[in-house]
């Protein structure tokens, strides 16, 4: 079986690289953490020398360039002007891009999202300061759009994940929001306890995002950006309720069946998509 290879960017204040690497490995990928400068130098020296070796490009969480001029802004600018064409190639090759938290912020500033009309440069949506005015660390419930083309959420309806950000307030013009819904590009929405969208209620919707939007994809479903952190739920013990769940199960004479965290399913979907592409000869 051919390996599915994922590249995780590091450096300049990014910080979720180790656990994202771990989550992708758990999901079955071969992984490499690579400094942004190494990627740029490599691609500039010999175009395609690095990106062509990988199937999944990961923009992880953190504070790139300290988030000083808008979260993800400088990272996006650096990649766009240095290797933007190489990233275009990567997308045209049908490969996958996932941006988590700061990575999501970078993808929208790069213009890879929302990717309307095959335009992967236009900045159409923004992630601005949380309406509370402050950073928040909280676990949220997410409703997943089963009609979305998103490769990463296939077969999922709900998911609990942590958010940890100060700028996750999703914003776009009304017409663009409508368009996102129409195209089923809205993949994740913050939900209340009943599993339905939180309708702006804090802290279920932790940042004031319009229509509780927590994650979107491009029209192909192969580029996915989300504020919550799937890599931070790689193990059941990450979940805030795990000690309670374990105790309830034990009263029924049972134990926790699988210790793998639900966040891994996002990554596994990506890995399996690529694996099938490879098996069908659509990708090397």
């Amino acid at each position: 079986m051919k390996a599915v290879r994922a590249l995780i960017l590091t450096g300049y204040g990014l910080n979720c690289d180790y656990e994202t690497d771990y989550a992708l490995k758990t999901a079955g990928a071969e992984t490499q953490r690579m400094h942004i400068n190494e990627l740029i130098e490599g691609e500039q020296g010999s175009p395609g020398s690095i990106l062509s070796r990988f199937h999944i490009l990961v923009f992880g969480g953190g504070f790139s360039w300290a988030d000083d001029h808008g979260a993800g802004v400088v990272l996006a600018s650096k990649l766009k002007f240095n290797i933007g064409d190489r990233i275009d190639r990567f997308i045209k090759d049908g490969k996958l891009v996932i941006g988590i938290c700061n990575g999501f912020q970078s993808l929208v500033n790069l213009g890879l999202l929302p990717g309307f009309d095959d335009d992967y440069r236009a900045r159409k949506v923004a992630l601005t300061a949380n309406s509370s005015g402050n950073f928040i660390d909280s676990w949220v419930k997410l409703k997943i759009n089963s009609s979305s083309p998103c490769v990463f959420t296939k077969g999922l309806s709900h998911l609990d994940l942590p958010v940890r950000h100060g700028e996750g307030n999703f914003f776009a013009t009304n017409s663009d929001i409508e368009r996102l819904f129409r195209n089923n590009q809205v993949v994740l929405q913050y939900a209340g306890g009943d599993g339905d969208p939180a309708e702006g209620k804090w802290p279920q919707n932790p940042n004031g995002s319009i229509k509780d939007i927590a994650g979107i994809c491009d029209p192909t479903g192969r580029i996915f950006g989300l504020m919550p952190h799937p890599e931070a739920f790689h193990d059941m013990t990450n979940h805030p309720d795990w000690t309670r769940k374990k105790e309830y199960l034990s009263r029924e004479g049972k134990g926790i069946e699988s210790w793998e965290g639900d966040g891994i399913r996002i990554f596994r979907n990506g890995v399996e998509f690529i694996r099938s592409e490879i098996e069908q000869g659509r990708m090397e």
Partner: protein
Amino acid sequence: MISRLEIRLKDELTDPEGRNVKRKAADYFGIKLEDVRVIRILTIDAELNHDQLEKIRQDIFTNPVTEVSSFSPTARSFDWLIWVGFRPGLRDTAGSTAMEAIEDLLRIKFQGEEAVYTSKLYEIRGKLTEKKAKIIAGEILSNDIIQQYRLIQRAKWDPAQGIGLVIPKVILNHVPQVSTIAIGSNQELKDISISRNLALQDSDIPPIREYYLRDDVKSERRKYGLERPTDVELEYIAQSRSDHCNHNTFRGLFRYHDLSTGQKETVNNLFKTCIEAPTLTVKEKKDWVVSVLWDNAGVARFDENFNYTITGETHNSPSNMEAYGGAITGIVGIYRDPLGTGKGSKLIMGMYGYCVGHRDYEGELKPRLHPRRLLDGVIEGVKDGGNKSGVPTPYGLVVFDKGYMGKCLVFVTALGIMPGLVGNQPSHLKRTEPGDLIIMSGGRVGKDGIHGVTASSEVFSEHTPAGHVQIGDPYTQKKMHDFLIEARDEGLISFITDNGGGGLSSSIGESARFSNGCRVDLDRVPLKYSGLDQWEIWISESQERMTIAVKPKHLDRFMELSARHAVESTVIGEYNDSGYLRLDYKGTTCALISIAFMESDFPQWEFDAEWTPPELRGLKEPVLSEPKRHGEVLKTMLSRPNICSRNWISRQYDHEVQGGSVIKPLVGKGRDIPGDAVVVRPVLDSTRGIATTQALNPFYSEVDTYHMTAATIDEAVRKVVAVGGDPDHIGGVDNFCWPTIIYHPENNPDGKYKAAQLVRSNWALRDYCLAYGIPLLSGKDSMYIDGNLEGPYGERRKVSGLPTLLFTVSSVVKDIRKCVTMDAKCPGDTVYVLGDTRDELGGSEYYQMMGEVGLHVPWVDVNKSWPMYLALHRAIEEGLVSSAHAVTRGGLAVHLALVAMAGETGMDIRLADVPAADDLGDSKMLYSESSGRFIVTVDPARQDAFEKIFSGMKTGHIGAVSGSSRFKVKGKDGGIIINEDITKLKDFWKGPFGGLI
């Protein structure tokens, strides 16, 4: 050319930052504002043409979806404009990231002194007097130590000019110079010490003079053209002699005298007798203790492949001056300690502790920063410092007390992890050898931190660097951290240490002891701005720097990696075995000091310590009858500031990053009750974890610091055991914060008593660390937690903080899947109390609520407690425990309620079944703070197995978790004395700070 770019949110979007300003104006000062909007300003001092400016405006600095921007003034329809910018010389991180981004986009390099500066403009709408506008500018939007503001009234606004162009560039106009100093007599040196602010002790002066009069020293100095001591040398010696660097207090000689018994005892060196000796004794028995008592952090074994590191310190004085800057510098600074331990450890977690005045203080004293503003600033500093470092901050404590108005306490604690071996070498060992290069990595050197706070009284000019207060830069440090961990893994690092107090003088001075000498070119040290004197370069405390020893054969690879990570690294000298530390500047030697002299012991500080036992100080048990309304008492207790929910703080801190969160700061069904300890998994493919927690009990110091210390250690031990920590692996970190113990008849009349309090605290530290088998993996002391606050009549009143010990413990959890949280899990579960309740309410929260101190402070009985802790650990390992919680401040009533509130379920409790050593009334049963106790809930099906483990021990089956929503307590006579709705109780508990985000 100077350009000013103004960026603002589109009008149709709400401005959360502006709304926070509006909220603070109302909350802090009762000033009503209509609206506040924030304009970000980049002042670009560089030769860029119109097209270039337009390109950076559009492509980087303006988000087309949410923002508009212009190189012309954008302010309009306001009543007041307040511009806030940094003072010169402060680290403007956003300015430097803007430069990085511009350089990258335009493919240019900023030349010489070209730079970008950030500032903010607040557009304020609302009818305000100038006085009120000044309050908003000076008390909410800026701190004059680090920032400057300008106030513009609508009528005086020139829309063409805008706010003008302010360039906070440091201009020193100074040619660096070394001066030599005559020390013909002791008096002459003493005068120099005073005039230069060296703070040398009288007893330090003769040894320094004797050194310079030695023939061998004179002849060696002559070889380099040196005769008299240079300012570089004296500043260096003074720095290394400071209490901060040398811990003179803890190494001092104490003449202890118990005034009641007449007992007299000389205690020579608290550090050696109460910290070092017990730790070495314990280390003999605990093979997991890897490296203690010498490095920047202690090292303990995590598993066969990894070790963890831990240390803690305080950043009190700077935080008291500039809360945000002090706290962010503190947390970012402590993160360099694990990074500089052994050959370097990767940061895995941080913790915080804040001791401040009451948030709603309305008394007549005027602290520099009101406790509310101070706490807000400190919280924000640790938030930015921790979150942007990519290190989780899952645990912390807050204590409010009026004594901390004199000086606030900001504790910061850090843990790291490193492989046991790097290459084939143990990672915890490091040394410098002759020929190794001295490299400084990270930030640049400015006038930061030179002579600490003494500089704060100097008059500011427009271009004077605001050097004494700093703002930590987690971004620069995170890049350096990632780089150094890679360099470590490639085996490129021989030695590494951080630049903290004393800067290069301390990091190089100490590392040169291994090789026995070094030579440094001070002119090669990269500077933030020119004009620093040689001595300033040497002792500057500019942040985010590490000193690394690298073998010449590794230099190229080291520098290559440094460049890859966009980190500045510079070779500034080399280690040798000359026996001397030599500093050159442009080829001329400006300091030459014998390594042996710097290592030699200077005369010991001496203290008189006079102990008056509490009875003789007039303390007594209060005369109180049983309250008639127990429910009201409980609700009031739950809403007291030192008991109530402080959740708004923990929610701002990322506690999940690195993916190892197992037991979080807030637990329970509603995820809103603080857990006993946190557990993280630092190695993701292992099921081992590290459990850590902290304890602070300063109020017991009012009775006896010996028992304060014992109770604090015991509390930390219990809390870590409660989540599943291994009692046989508990490491400790002691952080002492003490009011001045140097006696002075007018300025510190009770100095001798405070010295005795310190001795007694250390005795307890020694006794209980030995008893519990706790090695002190690390620790620090911070004296002088006093302040002289202005009163209403222009007088100054001295306010001293309570003697405070923050005790941190770390433990290894063998299998994280067995960890336990404190929330009641299922209706019907049996509730137990483990351990005796005694008549011990001295210093308690209950007595405090009644306006009393009391006398019977909790005592720790290790012989009874320890077997119980081992038994509880066994019960947790065997899966018999549904929840476990240590009973701490507030006693049984508060903590039973917390367990119930966390489970969002009722409880039926019988006080008659609570094990008690004394015949206590209901209120003492409910609110005694006796140590050694736990509340445990157990599945009835496991009750027999559970009770078997505890046979022969003092445990009580005191009730059950109920299916109802009522928290019910039956008094000793069987009647119900508390019957409250659990949701209501939680509302009371959350009430005081519930509105904060």
